[in-house]
């Protein structure tokens, strides 16, 4: 085994490009591992952990590009390094319009080259993201700040600035938005319509907007403000601004609010703002206690909003949800029949954080103790994210899985490994998965997951749901079809999949007690 590396001084590439090149290199036969990263402290510690560190990298700094390779032979090592260098030097073909439009190297000049520019989508590394967002706001642009690792102090500062300038600042860590029908970052292609959404939750917003669209209603605006907005320190600044804008928006007839339970002070402000409109508002504060008639899952929130948008009664929406459960009975039978003899626990492996939270909210009351690396509600903290215990729900979007890697909606490597592992664990009763489609997500998630699901489904029931629409680039129906063909049980929503998991395990309990 040979280990080696190269430093390219002053070369800069965005991490997505670099990870793409790293993955391509790793896929070469005989290459054991490869990584292409900027030489930050964090990245160097990642290289160290991966056994890819070489002494030459010690003196590297943030501005250096590091190429690290582990290969079976010295020849292959050299070839791989040369290939990496060549891939990085390959200039992208100029866009057709490049001759008429000079390349902009800053937000300010980009805004000049695109007359009428009104929004900046920022996804640079967190260290630099706040400064770029500030420049965008100063330039008069609304901002979607996709980047994470922005301090809460910067978030507060930026949101105050945005509010003063009557601008929207979505994020940081805002994955999803649909503005004027245009999906931004991780979002689905949904029908336009009267339902406006304010979300402090990315995948929650994707699920609600897709389900509303699949119900035949549509979305006016989907504003994702970032998960921290409803915390006390931020005070719901942008959640409230977005809510007020939707109240004032003539295209929006129904409003959906999606978030984890807000801080009580923020909640009071939201309730106050909500009380000032006659527009119906569906609130889902996932994990908060609900009263009769209030939704407690993403699916219920979407069903109620769609009914309101279509002028149907709420009772009809609840009845349809009941009917859906009845229709799922054959799937309970199929799942129960496939349960392994000794397996006792649900193992949920999620790419969407909100789905992981929803699973805990739904299944804790049904199953008792549940564990998670992102515990919510009654969920308990998992000791080691790499090792499941009991009923266990893993969010692969958490930091421990995304350091130096693309988001699990793009890179399925870790989740697939875990599917194999959980299927082989005799304690596993069934595996629960989410699959997210839309812009930003992998171009063909079904193909990425197929081998792992096929393997797992031979041993345990594999239950999943697909978030998306038929207008998404990946196509919702085709994805479901593909997953069924490799042995998955596909539920109509994440909530339905969780409920099914509970029912299937419950059935086994009954079988035993008989």
């Amino acid at each position, binding site marked *: 085994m040979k280990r080696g590396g190269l430093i390219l001084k002053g070369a800069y590439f*965005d991490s997505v490009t670099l990870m793409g090149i790293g993955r391509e290199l790793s896929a070469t036969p005989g290459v054991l591992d490869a990584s292409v990263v900027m030489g930050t402290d964090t990245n160097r510690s990642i290289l160290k952990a991966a056994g890819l560190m070489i002494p030459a990298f010690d003196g590297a700094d943030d*501005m250096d590009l590091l190429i690290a390779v582990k290969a079976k032979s010295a020849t292959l090592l050299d070839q791989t390094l040369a290939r990496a260098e060549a891939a990085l030097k390959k200039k992208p073909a100029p866009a057709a319009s490049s001759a008429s439009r000079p390349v902009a190297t800053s937000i300010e000049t*980009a*805004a000049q080259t695109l007359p009428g520019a009104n929004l900046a989508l920022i996804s640079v590394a967190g260290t630099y993201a706040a400064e770029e967002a500030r420049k965008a706001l100063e330039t008069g642009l609304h901002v979607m700040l996709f980047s994470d690792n922005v301090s809460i102090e910067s978030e507060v500062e930026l949101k105050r600035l945005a509010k003063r300038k009557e601008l929207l600042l979505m994020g940081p860590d805002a994955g999803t938005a649909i*503005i004027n029908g245009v999906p931004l970052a991780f979002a689905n292609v949904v029908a336009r319509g009267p339902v406006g959404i304010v979300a402090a939750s990315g995948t929650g917003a994707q699920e609600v907007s897709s389900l509303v669209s699949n119900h035949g209603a549509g979305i006016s605006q989907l504003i994702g403000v970032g998960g921290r907005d409803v915390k006390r320190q931020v005070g719901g600044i942008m959640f409230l601004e977005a809510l007020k804008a939707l109240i004032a928006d003539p295209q929006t007839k129904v409003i959906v609010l999606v978030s984890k339970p807000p801080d009580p002070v923020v909640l009071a402000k939201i309730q106050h703002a909500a009380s000032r409109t006659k527009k119906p508002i569906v609130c889902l504060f996932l994990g908060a206690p609900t009263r009769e008639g209030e939704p407690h899952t993403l699916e219920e929130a979407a069903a109620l909003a769609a009914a309101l948008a279509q002028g149907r009664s709420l009772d009809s929406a609840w009845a349809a949800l009941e009917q859906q459960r009845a229709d799922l009975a054959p799937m309970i039978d199929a799942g129960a029949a496939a349960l392994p003899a000794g397996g006792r626990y649900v193992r949920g492996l999620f790419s969407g954080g909100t789905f992981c939270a929803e699973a805990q909210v739904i299944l804790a009351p049904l199953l008792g103790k549940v564990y998670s690396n992102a515990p919510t509600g009654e969920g308990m903290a998992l000791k080691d994210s790499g090792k499941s215990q009991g009923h266990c729900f893993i969010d692969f979007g958490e930091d421990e899985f995304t350091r130096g890697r693309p988001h699990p909606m793009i890179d399925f490597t870790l989740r697939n490994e875990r599917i194999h592992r959980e299927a082989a664990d005799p304690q596993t009763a069934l595996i629960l998965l989410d699959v997210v489609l839309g812009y930003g997500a992998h171009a063909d998630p079904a193909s990425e997951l197929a081998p792992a699901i096929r393997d797992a489904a031979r041993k345990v029931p594999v239950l999943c749901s697909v978030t998306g629409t038929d207008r998404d680039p990946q196509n919702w129906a085709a994805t479901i079809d593909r997953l069924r063909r490799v042995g998955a049980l596909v539920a109509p929503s994440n909530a339905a999949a969780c409920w099914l998991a509970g029912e299937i395990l419950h059935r086994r309990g009954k079988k035993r007690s008989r």
Partner: protein
Amino acid sequence: MPLNALFESDLRVVNVGVPSFAEALRQAGAEAVQVDWKPPLPVSEESRRTIARHRARIERANAQALERILSAAPRWVGMGRALDTIPGMHEDLLLHAGPPITWDRMCGPLQGAIIGALLYERRATSVAAARKLAASGKIRFAPCHEHGTTGPMAGVVSPSMPVFIVRNETHGNRAFATMNEGLGKVLRYGAYGPDVIERLRWMERELYPVLRAAIEHLGGIDLKHIMAQALHMGDELHNRNRAGTSLLYRALAPAIVRTCTDTDAAARVLEFINGNDHFFLNLSMPAGKATLDPARGIAGSSVCVVMARNGTDFGVQLAGTGASWFTGPAAVPDALFFPGYTRKDANPDIGDSAITETYGLGGFAIAAAPAIVQFVGGTAADAVGYTQRMYEICAGESRSYQVPSLDFRGTPTGIDAVKVVEKNILPFIDTGVAHRKPGVGQIGAGVLNAPPEPFQRAYEGLAGVLGGKRR
């Protein structure tokens, strides 16, 4: 635009970061422009905050500096001997290109030029003696830039050398440069053989009096006018001075014929100018110096008034940081080498000629001189791209020097060190390349970016001044 107004508009997005987001937006029917973003050059958090706090003041100061630069009117007004003409010049002083440097750290070509100058001045009769004298401490070395002077490549100016005198008619200040010796084995590339010394003596003996009489007869030549025309004729006035030299020749020739009674001497002088496409460089450089010097001492300004290299260090001075030099290691240019030479033979970047870039010519005006990018296998489109990129780091645009292929847009002028750091775009320089050994001469020509360190340090230095700390 308030949020509700956004809902009524077409979404037009500036995308900074993951390029696929912009592609997805276009697929979805929205207009999107991708920012070619790089992280800023690393600087201390404290400096970053200081600069951010003083942003409005810096911009006001830069506007003032830019106005002084744009309003300058450099004119070649006469000639003189360095000793009698250059302020602060004395018998034991040699001027050199770039930031201050001691003998032991000087690169080969600079040491060679120092040796040559001492032989020319008859301060030594052998190379060994010249070396000994140079190292003895008896001879003082100082940057040309600290004496109103600019020197190409090694840039060595000794007391007996004749110099051009350029006056800024707007602000009244003066700047100086020696006469260009031509290509091949010449002092500015560190050559010191007998032919080199003999040429320098001829320049002093014949070229100098003939040119002095001609320029006095003419009452001066407006350099700004010549340079503006030369840009329209394919020069960028750093690495290509063919048009500038030709225009100068047309202006000078009748005056030389009228003032020089010795027709052989007149012919030799005219042939010498005609035979050296770079003759005008030694006027475009002091024209730049005369243009930029009035911008010095504007408190708070981050505009560069000097970029210069001594073959070891690259140095920068700002309008707002007084006499401080901010330096970093000089790099080797990406170049096309003359047959028989490779990158291994190349000396790191050297010379005061980056003064041309500093006032909006050279690499900053390369879109006007597409012939130059051929040096590095580039295309005319590359040349346009280089110039367009430089607008990103400049305080403004020239009112006089224009680029025909950019619809006569003024060249990017007034390098702003704060923008250089924040946008991580380094000034683009096109330049000649010297052999690393003294005396071999020019071995190629090419392009390079200025190194980042001088700009990072200049940024910190300006923050120090603005934050009230003495450096």
